[in-house]
């Protein structure tokens, strides 16, 4: 199956700092998603981004499918950004939308 590697595994930053989270994957994909799991365990979908660049407020993501990686950028971090960020990938077609998740980057924002 597809291997997904996320880096760094842990990141501790001061409020207001910027950060870049990386997701590498081992095979071609047509489905890539970024999620944030907050300290209460809720998983929120941030981006559906199999290729290209998207922005949503202070967050943006870029996927370079040909080079098998994706980056998540967080600017001007706030304490509410704390939690675990997961990248998930898949080769999806009708009847098969399986995703393989990375092990996540744990982000801690200090006030």
């Amino acid at each position, binding site marked *: 199956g597809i291997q997904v590697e996320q880096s760094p595994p842990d990141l501790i930053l001061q409020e207001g700092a910027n950060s870049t989270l990386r997701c590498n994957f081992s095979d071609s994909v047509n*489905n890539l998603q970024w*999620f944030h799991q907050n300290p209460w365990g*809720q*998983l929120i*979908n941030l981006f559906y981004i199999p290729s290209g660049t998207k922005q949503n407020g202070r967050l943006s993501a870029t996927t370079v499918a040909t080079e098998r990686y994706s980056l998540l950028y967080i600017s001007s971090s706030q304490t509410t950004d704390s939690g675990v960020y997961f990248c998930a990938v898949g080769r999806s077609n009708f009847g098969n939308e399986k995703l393989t998740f990375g092990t996540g980057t744990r982000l801690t924002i200090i006030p």
Partner: protein
Amino acid sequence: DVKVTQSSRYLVKRTGEKVFLECVQDMDHENMFWYRQDPGLGLRLIYFSYDVKMKEKGDIPEGYSVSREKKERFSLILESASTNQTSMYLCASSLSLSPQHFGDGTRLSIL
């Protein structure tokens, strides 16, 4: 907004019991998924369904079964609960090639 509702936030059951976890989505999504999340192992796919009465095994289906009699509802069944099935269970739904949306999770303890 997509709403994925899991029947219980916390559940405690005994070894050998038959356990039902229910998931309901309100957005007419054809795809539904059951994952379990364990420390150090990330999210792993148990089963998924791409249509009513259709089901496919994920990466760790042993000891579980599923039922999808109506489009909005996807049930996970632990046939004979064991202590190694103590975990956080997460349900998700999606349209084809679209973001997956998660419920709040059920933290299941098997004693």
